[in-house]
C-alpha cells in the first residue's frame, strides 16, 4: 500500500481537530506568540501528512487488515505465548476513570484508590504464584525486568562489599536479552553448554562457577522446550559459590500453579505479563515485566511499589512508596510507575482465570504442545529432543528436509503464511540447526492444531515435488518475500518525497 504521505494534499485538514474551532489566521495568528523569542520558534514546516479523517481511517483500517494477528490467525510463535487476549481486559482498562487519571494526581482515601487497589491485589497474586515475598510491578517489559533483576543482584553483592563478582552465567540456549542485560549491568557473560538431552550441562556449570560468579540467569522450562530436571542441583552449585539465581519468566505458562520459581531456588524472577497473563503484544508492545524477589533482595527493589496503609483518620489507603522507604533501591526505571494500563489488563485476566484456572492454563498449554509434537513426529518430522516431554513448546529441526530437498526452516516458515498460519519462531535457539520453535498455547483448539499438522505435511510434500514453490514463498500475502539484505545495506528508514523506487 502507498504510504500515508503519498495521499497528502497541501492544505487538506480535519477542522474538528483545530483546537480553537477556527484557523490560526482567524484567531489572530502569531500575536499569541509575542512573548516567545523569534529564534526559539519553529520555522521548518511540520512534515506531517495532510489528509482528511476519512482518508486516515481508511488507510489505517486497510493497513490493519494486512496483519496476521491472534484475532485472525493461529500464531504458534515459540517463546512468545501468543494466546487469546480476552477483550474484556481491554474494555475494562479503557474505562474513563482509569484512563483519565494523571500519574501525579493526589491520592487519599477517596482518590486514586481504584487503580492502586488493583495494582496492590496484583502484587499479592503474583507473590503467591511465584512463591517469593517481594515484588515491584514497575519494569516495562521482560528485558527491563531482567535489568532490574541483575541490577538487584549487583546491588546485593555491592551492599556486602563483595566486589569481585564480575561474571554472569547463561546457558548457550538463553534468550538474547539475558546476555545483553548482563552487559548493561556491567558484567561479562559466560555461556554454559547444553547436553544432547536438552538439559544444561551440570558439570560444565560446576566448572564455570567460582568467586567471580555474580549469578546465573535461567529460563525453566528452557528455551529448548524442556524442563531443567537438575534445577535444584544447579541452584545449589551457584548458591554455594556465592552467586544468585535469576529466573527469566518468559516460559511461566508451562508451569503456572504447578512449580514455583521460588521453590526451585531462584532469588529473583521477572514475569512477562504479555505472555502468561494474556495482555496484548500490540505489534511489539507495550508489555510489563514485574519482578519478584526473596527477602535478601527486597531492599533493592525498583521503586515505586504499592503499599497499604491508613490515613490520618484511620481509613485504609493504598499508595505508592517513595525513595525514602527504599533507601537501598536500585532506583526507578520509568518516569512514573511503569505500564499501569498493561498491569490492569493482567489483573483482570488473573481475576477471571483465578487460581484453579491458571493451573488449567499450564495443563492445556502442555497438552497442546505434546499433542502437536507427537502428531508432527508421527508424520515424520524430527523433534530436537524426541525423548523428552514437550513443555508448553517444543523444537523441530528441519535439517533432514534441508539436506534432502534444499528447503530451509525459513522457507517452511514463509510457506506456512500462505496456508494462513503465522510462522513459528525460527533459528532460535541458535544451537539447533534449521529449527522451528513451536508454541501453540492453551487457547487453541484441537482442530486448529490438526490443520497446522496438515499444512506442515502438505508443505513437506511440496518441498519434495515442487521445492521452488516453497523456496519462493509466500505467494498469497500482500507482498512476496522481502529483500532483507537490501534493507540493511541501503537503509530507507524515513519516507521523503524524492525517494523514488523501482
Amino acid at each position, binding site marked *: 500500500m502507498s504510504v500515508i504521505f503519498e495521499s497528502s494534499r497541501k492544505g487538506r485538514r480535519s477542522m474538528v481537530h483545530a483546537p480553537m474551532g477556527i484557523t490560526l489566521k482567524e484567531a489572530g495568528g502569531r500575536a499569541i506568540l509575542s512573548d516567545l523569542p523569534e529564534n526559539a520558534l*519553529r520555522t521548518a514546516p*511540520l512534515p506531517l501528512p495532510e489528509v482528511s479523517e476519512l482518508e*486516515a481511517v481508511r488507510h489505517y483500517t486497510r493497513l490493519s487488515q494486512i496483519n496476521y494477528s491472534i484475532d485472525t490467525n493461529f500464531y504458534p510463535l515459540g517463546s512468545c505465548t501468543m494466546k487469546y487476549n480476552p477483550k474484556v481486559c481491554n474494555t*475494562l482498562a479503557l474505562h474513563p476513570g482509569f484512563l483519565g487519571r494523571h500519574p501525579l494526581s493526589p491520592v487519599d482515601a477517596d482518590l486514586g484508590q481504584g*487503580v492502586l487497589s488493583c495494582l496492590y491485589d496484583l502484587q499479592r497474586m503474583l507473590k503467591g504464584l511465584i512463591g517469593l515475598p517481594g515484588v515491584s510491578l514497575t519494569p516495562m517489559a521482560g528485558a527491563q525486568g531482567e535489568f532490574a533483576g541483575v541490577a538487584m543482584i549487583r546491588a546485593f553483592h555491592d551492599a556486602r562489599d563483595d566486589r569481585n563478582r564480575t561474571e554472569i552465567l547463561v546457558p548457550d540456549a538463553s534468550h538474547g536479552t539475558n546476555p545483553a542485560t548482563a552487559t548493561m549491568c556491567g558484567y561479562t557473560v559466560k555461556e554454559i553448554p547444553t547436553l544432547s538431552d536438552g538439559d544444561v550441562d551440570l558439570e560444565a556449570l560446576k566448572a564455570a562457577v567460582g568467586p567471580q560468579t555474580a549469578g546465573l540467569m535461567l529460563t525453566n522450562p528452557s528455551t529448548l522446550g524442556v524442563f531443567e530436571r537438575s534445577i535444584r542441583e544447579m541452584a545449589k552449585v551457584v548458591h554455594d559459590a556465592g552467586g544468585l539465581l535469576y529466573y527469566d519468566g518468559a516460559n511461566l505458562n508451562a508451569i503456572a500453579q*504447578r512449580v514455583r520459581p521460588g521453590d526451585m531456588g531462584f532469588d529473583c524472577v521477572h514475569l512477562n505479563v504479555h505472555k502468561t497473563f494474556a495482555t496484548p503484544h500490540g505489534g*511489539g508492545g507495550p508489555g510489563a515485566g514485574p519482578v519478584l524477589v526473596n527477602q535478601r533482595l527486597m531492599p533493592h527493589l525498583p521503586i515505586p511499589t504499592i503499599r497499604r496503609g491508613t490515613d490520618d483518620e484511620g481509613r485504609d489507603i493504598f499508595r505508592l512508596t517513595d525513595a525514602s522507604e527504599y533507601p537501598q533501591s536500585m532506583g526507578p526505571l520509568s518516569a*512514573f510507575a511503569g505500564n499501569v494500563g498493561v498491569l490492569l489488563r493482567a489483573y483482570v485476566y488473573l481475576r477471571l482465570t483465578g487460581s484453579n484456572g491458571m493451573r488449567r492454563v499450564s495443563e492445556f498449554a502442555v497438552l497442546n504442545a505434546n499433542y502437536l509434537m507427537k502428531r508432527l513426529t508421527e508424520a515424520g518430522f524430527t523433534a530436537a529432543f524426541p525423548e523428552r516431554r514437550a513443555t508448553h513448546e517444543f523444537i523441530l529441526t528441519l535439517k533432514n528436509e534441508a539436506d534432502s530437498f534444499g528447503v530451509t526452516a525459513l522457507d517452511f516458515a514463509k510457506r506456512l503464511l500462505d496456508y494462513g498460519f503465522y510462522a513459528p519462531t525460527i533459528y532460535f535457539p541458535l544451537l539447533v540447526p534449521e529449527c522451528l520453535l513451536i508454541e501453540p498455547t492453551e487457547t487453541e483448539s484441537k482442530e486448529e492444531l490438526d490443520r497446522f499438522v496438515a499444512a506442515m505435511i502438505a508443505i513437506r510434500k511440496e518441498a519434495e515435488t515442487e521445492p521452488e514453490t516453497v523456496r519462493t514463498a509466500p505467494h498469497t500475502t500482500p507482498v512476496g518475500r522481502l529483500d*532483507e539484505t537490501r534493507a540493511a545495506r541501503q537503509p530507507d*528508514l524515513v519516507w521523503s518525497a524524492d525517494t523514488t523506487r523501482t
Partner: protein
Amino acid sequence: MPYIPHTDADVAEMLAVIGVNTTQDLFDEIPAELKVDSENMIPEGAPEWRVAADLRQRAASDRTLTNFIGAGAYDHHIPAAVWELVTRGEFYTAYTPYQAEASQGTLQTLYEFQTMIAGLMAMDLSNASLYDGASALAEAVLMAIRANRKVKSKVVLMPESLHPVWRQVVHTLVRHQGIILKTVRIDSKYGVVQPSALAEFDSEEIAALVIPQPNLFGQLEDVDTLTDWAKARGALSIAAVNPMAMALLKPPGQWGSDGVDIACGEGQPLGIPLSSGGPYFGFLTAKKALVRQVPGRIVGRTVDGQGREGFVLTLQAREQHIRRSRATSNICTNQGLMTTAATLYMTLLGPQGLHETAISCHANAQHLRDAVEVVPGVSIRYTGPFFHEFIITLDGINSQDDKAVPNLMQRMAKKGYAAGLPLSLWYPERRREILLCATEIHDAILIDAFAETLREELACL
C-alpha cells in the same frame, strides 16, 4: 475460568495420541518435591460479569479531577478515531513483526511513525520506540558514549532543570557502565542553564550534554548556545524534548549551527491517555551517521522479488537477538501499539492541527498565568519564556510548613481540581511552589473558575 476450548472428548483423544493416561503424566519430568498444589494467594476465578462490575466500580471511584498537573504527562484531547483504530484486533494482538510478509500493517505504520517523529524533530531518522521518555534518555546517553569516539571521557552533563525522576532513571540504567553523570546548575531568576554554569566544565572532557526543552519548570533553555557549546567541546548533544512543544518551538535538528546529535523524549503527548503514568512510549531520533548505534527496533523499506515495496525490521545486527552481549541495548518488546496511536494522532491533526494545538496550549497557559498571578498571595516564580507550564510561589505560606501546600491540594481536590504539582515532591525545600500546566482543553472559562477557587481556598488559609 481460563480460556480453554477443549472438550472432554478432545482431551481423551489427545492423550491417546500422545500415549499417556492423564495430563498429569505430561509433567512427569518435574521433580516431585517441587510440585505444588493450587492453594495460594490468587482467588478463585470469577465470571466476566462479576469482574466487570467490580472493576467498573473501582474505575469510577478514581473520580477524575479537572487536571492542572503536567510535569511529564500532559492532558490533551485525543481524537476518538485514534483508539477506535488502535484497538482493532489486527494491530492489538499481533507480535513484533518478525514475519514481515504477514505483518505489513504493523511495519508500514512503524515506518510512517519513524518518518513523522523524525520530521517533527527535524532529525534524519528514528527508531520504532523505547519504553518511555526517561528510559529513552538513558538509552540516548549510552548511545552517545558508544558513538563518541572523539573524547575518551565518560562524563555526561545533565542540567538541574531536567525532570528529577528522569535523572534518577538515567542514573539507574547507565551507572554500571562507568559513566559519570554531572549536574549543570540553573540560575534562580530564569530557571534555565546560563553560559556561566557551563563554564564550570571548561576544563573537563565531556562526552555528552543533555538539553531539555522546555525544561521541567516549563522554561525555555537557550538551546542554540548549549548545542554549539557541546559541539565545540567535542561532546555529543542530546535533546530531551516534549514533542508537542516541537510543533511550535525550534526542533532539535536545527538547534545551534548544526543541530543536535540525538533527540529523544516522552511520546505521551501525541495521543496517549494519562492512565496513571503508562503505557506511554519513548522516542529516539538521531543523525544519519549514528544509525548503527541506535538501540531498539528499526523498520526499513525494501522490495520483494517482483519489485513491490514492503517493509521489514532492519539493521538487526545491532540487537540482542543477534548480537547478544554486544547489542546496542537489551530492549526486545517495546511500546509498539503506542506508536500506532501517535501515528494516528499526528495524521489526524496534521501539520496545521498540531501547530495550532501547541499554540493553543501556550495561549491557555498564558491565560492561566495571568489569572493566577492576580490571586492574592500568588507570584510567578521565574521570568522568561515558557511553554505550557510554569511555577507559582505561594508567598503567604510559611516556608517551613510541610503541611500547608498538601492541605491546600486536598481542599482543591474536594472542589474537583488536581491543582498542580507541589514541587516539594522532588525538592523538599521548595515547600511553597507549585507547577501548573494548561493545554488546549483548558479554556478561559475553566481557568477562570479554577483561579477563583484558588483565590477562595487561599483566602481561608
